[in-house]
């Protein structure tokens, strides 16, 4: 650990620890190891540290929540981990992260390997897709943030309901019923609603919160009467498309979401067949790099 990261505790440390404890989602141990390896160097590369933190749901969410807390009194709330780090300061943030890693002050640890991998990958490919698509209003940073947090309700539910893993498997394989409909047969809520109220409590923009809430809802995506902002619809479409690209390339267990939502998503993103093939090809190195 470099000297810089051993300074005395600041209010940021306390706020950050509260945020991560309230969140109830453990950070990915692999990411924590990478973070500590970099932070422990005599001269840590802060740019690398930002990349490491930004790939983890729990660390990113807690830093955004901390930056948006009244303590910092920002007039404009932050909407991505990059903005949060700019407000809080890289050194101070890294110190706060290192502090809780050293004290092992995390919520109960679950094996969330699949969730950690998928959220980081989908965030990265979503951000890249937004850059490729060049749709007005659809920012790469928002697409990244949404991709990272879209499924943050899942680890919360895994931590509370012992058999939620089976529910998830059933929802992933059902080609007729909506994902959240399957969840609601077993639970008094669903992961999209849990994710949405968490995102609201971090003061993420309304469009991102609404996108999290409706990301499995085909009616919300395509109905003109449903009051879902166009940005929310396009964020959902981008992340569904990103997930499809990742699953297609890596040959991972395919979910049924693309068969249910794919056509609507491509329409929302104005992607025709030729463009689709082009994006599949261009995405190859991006998906590989996200590994």
């Amino acid at each position, binding site marked *: 650990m470099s000297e810089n990261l051993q300074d005395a505790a600041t209010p940021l440390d306390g706020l950050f620890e509260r945020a991560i404890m*309230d969140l*109830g989602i453990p950070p990915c141990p692999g990411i924590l190891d990478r973070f500590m390896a970099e932070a422990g160097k005599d001269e840590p590369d802060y740019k690398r540290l930002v990349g490491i933190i930004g790939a983890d749901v729990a660390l990113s969410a807690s830093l955004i929540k901390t930056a*948006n*807390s*009244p303590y910092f009194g*920002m*007039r*404009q*709330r932050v909407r991505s981990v990059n903005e949060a780090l700019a407000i809080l300061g890289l050194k101070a943030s890294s110190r706060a992260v290192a502090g809780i890693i050293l004290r092992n002050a995390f919520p109960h640890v679950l094996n969330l390997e699949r969730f950690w991998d998928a959220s980081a990958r989908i965030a990265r490919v979503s951000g890249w897709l937004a850059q490729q698509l060049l749709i007005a209003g659809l920012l790469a940073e928002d697409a990244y943030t949404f991709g990272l947090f879209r499924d943050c*309700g899942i680890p*919360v*539910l895994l931590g*509370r309901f012992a058999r939620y893993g089976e529910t998830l498997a059933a929802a992933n394989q059902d080609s007729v019923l909506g994902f959240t409909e399957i969840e*609601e047969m077993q*639970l*008094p*809520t*669903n992961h999209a*609603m*849990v994710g*949405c*109220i*968490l995102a*609201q*409590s971090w*003061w993420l*923009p*309304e469009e991102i*919160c609404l996108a999290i809430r409706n990301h499995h809802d085909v009616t919300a995506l395509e109905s003109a009467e449903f*009051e879902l902002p166009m940005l929310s619809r396009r964020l959902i479409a981008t992340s569904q498309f990103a997930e499809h690209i990742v699953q297609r390339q890596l040959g991972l267990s395919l979910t049924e979401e693309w068969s249910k939502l794919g056509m609507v998503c491509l329409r929302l993103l104005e992607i025709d067949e030729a463009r689709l093939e082009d994006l599949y090809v261009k995405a190859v190195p991006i998906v590989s790099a996200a590994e």
Partner: protein
Amino acid sequence: MQSAGRLVADAHASGRPLSAIWVDLDRFGQVNESFGHPGGDEVLENLAARFRERVNGRVITSRVGGDEFVFLVPDCNRTEALRLASELAATVEEPLPVSNLILRPTASVGVAVCEAGEPPVSLLERADRAMLAAKNRGGNTVVCSGDEPVPGRLGIMLAREELAIENLLHAALENGGFCLNYQPIIRADGNVEAVEALMRCSVNGGDIPPAKFIPVAEKTGLVVRLGEWSLLQGAMYARRLQDAGCGTKVAINVSRAQLGSSKFSHALNAALICSNVRPELVELELTESLFMDISEIVQNNLKNVIASGVSLAIDDFGTGYSCLASLKDIPARKLKLDRAFVTVLPEDQRALSVVRAMTRLGHDLGMTIVAEGCEKMEQIDVLLDAGVNAIQGFFYARPMPEEAMLSWLNTRNTYE
């Protein structure tokens, strides 16, 4: 219209204000139908004479339609124009004898103040539109141009003041300007029954009172988002009190828009799951009219609240349209008497009789009775004597931020 053009040109040249007032009689067609056109003309002539008496010679008065009058008033700003418009409306309302009967007509009045360089036609059109907005509000009222409802950010029609508040609400949402304060509810034995979460909103350092922002939040649907945020914050705070060893219940207000949503119980359960709080430490406060709502969605939501282990309280009881027959079926464990009964105590003996009766009724139904708005010891004495179980009000504590509430509870526990 020649004269109107001259007055407007004079106003532009001198920079002095000029106002147009458009008066339209409400339901004048019925007067014509009942009394025939001669009767209708008699009414109009009478009113014209009254108007002439009311305004001085510098005002141009014209009858522009069958039952419409327009006044162009020089040297008259918005405040003065609104005052004159109200006086003209009051003039219309004075009893009017027609064919041995007394009529009490009313009018819809629109006001517009001439803007720099504005042509006369535009000024008159704005006054006419303001009059129509007054008519659309049910008549018998005055509306100033610019105050007519316009679509807000979420497409809902809002008056100018409401629009300004809606903008502030969005600014508060975007800048984390909302927080919950907490006010304790104290039992007769001195223990804390619960703390009620009360939403506060501030933008750019200025507070917006709940009485102002809640009606606009309800009208625009933002109340659902704010309500869900309150559910999670309140539940998180209950968890914090649970962890701190206080174990005090947190009461959270729920609006009609929330309870009327098919997603309400999903949101409540999501808040309980995220906070991981014991559900019995959360209570939802609903006004009595919500319990009386027999729609399937509301009734299902109420059942789901009970199934989740969260308790219900009837808020502001006694001032709405209480249906005693339905009270026996309400699944609430707590009844909060409206502050209107408390503020008049101990002097108002009749109010005290009603409090005693409601308390007895609530007890017979197995409910805990809370009195809100207590500011004086004498009020608490008579309320406890009447059988009320717990007291909320400034006498014990004002609403306070999270940390202050926690310290208050800790200090209290130390001395108990």
